[in-house]
């Protein structure tokens, strides 16, 4: 097969190579990939940006260019800022918790112990579960009447009457964050575990020979070497957490009193319930911009870390 294919094959690129400059040839080969990527990735983004500058609405049948009026409206929209702050809070809280707990889990799983393979596999179960299933499950765990969390807390004497976790603005968001932490920490642990395994064992052994205790080894050897992985994992998680939709949609629908409304649920409501495609696209674009800023901050920090390491 190879022999038969290469013999005539040798002549072909050369002959074409003479007819076409090398760079053009490369572009030609890249075109299919570029076109398919552009049609599914760039076009929707550009179209979304354009829609956000129009007053398109399926209901009123308007579809005209309206400049930045959607953004002016957005700037003064209390609903939007309410959702923005909730999303930021959710992102920050869940990313930090998941990173810290995930790091702890990764450190444990890095050690050799009996049944480690099984534990590593079992750990991934929460992450592999569909979010809607997780949501329903946490709905029941934290149920105000029959939830096991209330039952345990009540019998441990920590609360004196059932708490309605999803019905009070003070607890609804926290409960959603807990559900997200449960679900996604294994993912962080897995990413950090691969990072930990790249830390050369010889360094740790050398430190031990010098008499360094566990904590010192971690703080001065493992953590600095893990930093790039930690930042990239954190970036992944933050960008993902920022788009939180299913947990909120299933558990509270944004309530009570808008206390769990996030940008994803808000843009869903604006886009698909009220069919204001123009304004809804402006909300989505604002989301996109915020995500861009988050990514930028992480990247700048990452670059600084790498430079310092060099």
């Amino acid at each position, binding site marked *: 097969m190879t022999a038969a294919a290469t013999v005539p094959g040798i002549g072909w690129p050369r002959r074409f190579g003479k007819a076409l400059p090398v760079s053009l040839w490369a572009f030609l080969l890249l075109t299919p990939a570029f076109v398919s990527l552009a049609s599914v990735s760039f076009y929707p983004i550009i179209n979304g940006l354009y829609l956000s500058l129009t007053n398109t609405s399926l209901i009123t*049948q308007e579809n005209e260019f309206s400049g930045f009026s959607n953004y002016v409206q957005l700037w003064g929209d209390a*609903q939007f800022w309410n959702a923005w702050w909730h999303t930021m809070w959710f992102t920050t809280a869940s990313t930090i918790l998941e990173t810290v707990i995930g790091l702890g889990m990764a450190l444990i799983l890095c050690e050799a112990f009996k049944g480690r393979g099984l534990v590593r596999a079992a750990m991934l179960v929460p992450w592999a579960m569909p979010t809607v299933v997780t949501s329903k499950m946490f709905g029941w765990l934290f149920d105000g009447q029959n939830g096991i969390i209330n039952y345990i807390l009540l019998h441990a004497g920590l609360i004196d009457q059932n708490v*309605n976790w999803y019905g009070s*603005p003070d607890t609804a968001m926290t409960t959603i964050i807990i559900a997200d932490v449960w679900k996604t920490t294994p993912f962080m642990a897995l990413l950090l575990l691969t990072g930990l395994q790249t830390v050369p064992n010889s360094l740790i052994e050398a430190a031990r020979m010098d008499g360094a205790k566990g904590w010192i080894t971690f703080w001065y050897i493992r953590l600095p070497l893990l930093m790039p992985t930690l930042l990239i994992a954190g970036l992944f998680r933050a960008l993902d957490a920022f788009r939180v939709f299913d947990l909120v949609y299933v558990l509270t*629908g944004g309530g009570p*009193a808008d206390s769990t409304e996030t940008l994803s649920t808000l843009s869903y409501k604006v886009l698909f319930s009220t*069919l204001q495609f123009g304004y809804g696209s402006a909300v989505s674009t604002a989301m996109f911009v915020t995500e861009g800023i988050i990514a930028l901050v992480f990247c700048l920090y990452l670059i600084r870390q790498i430079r310092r390491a060099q």
Partner: protein
Amino acid sequence: MTDIKKGPVSGSKPAAHVTIADRRQFLIGSAGLLGAAALGLSTGLGVRRARAQSRAEISFASAAFFGKETFGDLIKAFNESQDRVLVKNIELPPPSSSTEVYQSLVQQLARRTGTPDVFSQDVIWIAGFAAAGWALPLDEYFPADKRSAYFSGTLNACTYDGKLTALPWFMDSGMFYYRKDVLEKHGGKVPENWADMATIAAAAQKAGDVDFGYLWQGKQAEVLVCDAVEIITSNNGAILAPDGKSSLINQKAAVDAIQFLHDTINGTKISPQDVLSWDEEPSRQPFTSGKAMFMRNWSYVYPIAQDAKASQIVDKVGVAPLPSFPGGKSSACLGGYQLGVNANSKQREAAIELLTWLSSTETQHRIALNFGLAPTRPALFQDEKIKAEQPFMASLEKVFTGATARPITPEYAKVTLALQSGISKALVSGNVQAEMDALAAQIDQIVG
């Protein structure tokens, strides 16, 4: 498509259905093939030829409901009942995915191509479709004398800007469930006003007969708007002014009504904190497991409450119109799907013929028996067969008489989001007047 797909329990004679359908398919398909040869034969059977060649072809789109048959079967029955119109059934997602049904209808109607010619719509979309000019005004086809056969609340919801733009089809509404056995111990009389309801509920709760006095739905969702419409209207209040251009939700009647809902949790304590995160199903569960005395919910609860496998309260459940405030009238939030004709339909006469047939006494009768969906014609509630087969439905006439539409405005989708958020805030914080003022300002901006 639906011709092939069958409902869970399709008609009693599936074989017969298939044969008839196949024969027609064959007739249509072979009309061209057989051509001249067939002509001699079909001239002999003049009617047959007319059937195959000159029928007006229209389409019908509806959310998919299931029962002993499907809407596909219904359309098939219409096609077989006459030889002037041939209807193609377009099946949309089930009513539980109502956002998707809405989107799909909007997209099709906005193209203004005339497809679908006839469609069914949730009551809250009627004004929007009418204002966009997608729904054909039906006044000339259904004059006043024909309309009087329907519930007035439903007709009201089908009317936009003085024009009838939808025809009533089938309905549901909020209703008051009570526990007969517990009520017997506490006076035995179904409360007709909210204060009595609260007193009885509190007494039953105190006596330990039930855990909860009254269950309703306070989740920030569409159902909260329904609960609010009922209680506000029962105090002679309203969410929108009659002209639909301003909000009345910060007037005393509405504020007092919302305050009453807030008090059921924090004052009289007849409702648990949990109602703030409950929609229909979470509030139904404690009731059917015997933990609650009164509940506001839709008609779907009754069959569950009477099912010994799912319920602890079989034969102990009663249904009545919701209570009202002194000087007000009981009100029930209207739900259900109504019929509309596409204003761009190229086959208007045929569309009207289908519409008339679907909403006729006979078809509503069939829908009531085979789908369990309640008719919009009060007369049908006296029907012996419905009384025998759907005794619960037959008892709902009184409840449906008070059916009240949610705010009728083309901007309903925006108004409902504002209402859900504003009312939820008022219920959580207890600053009812302040939150209602803010909400009224927001609604004024949307509809003004």
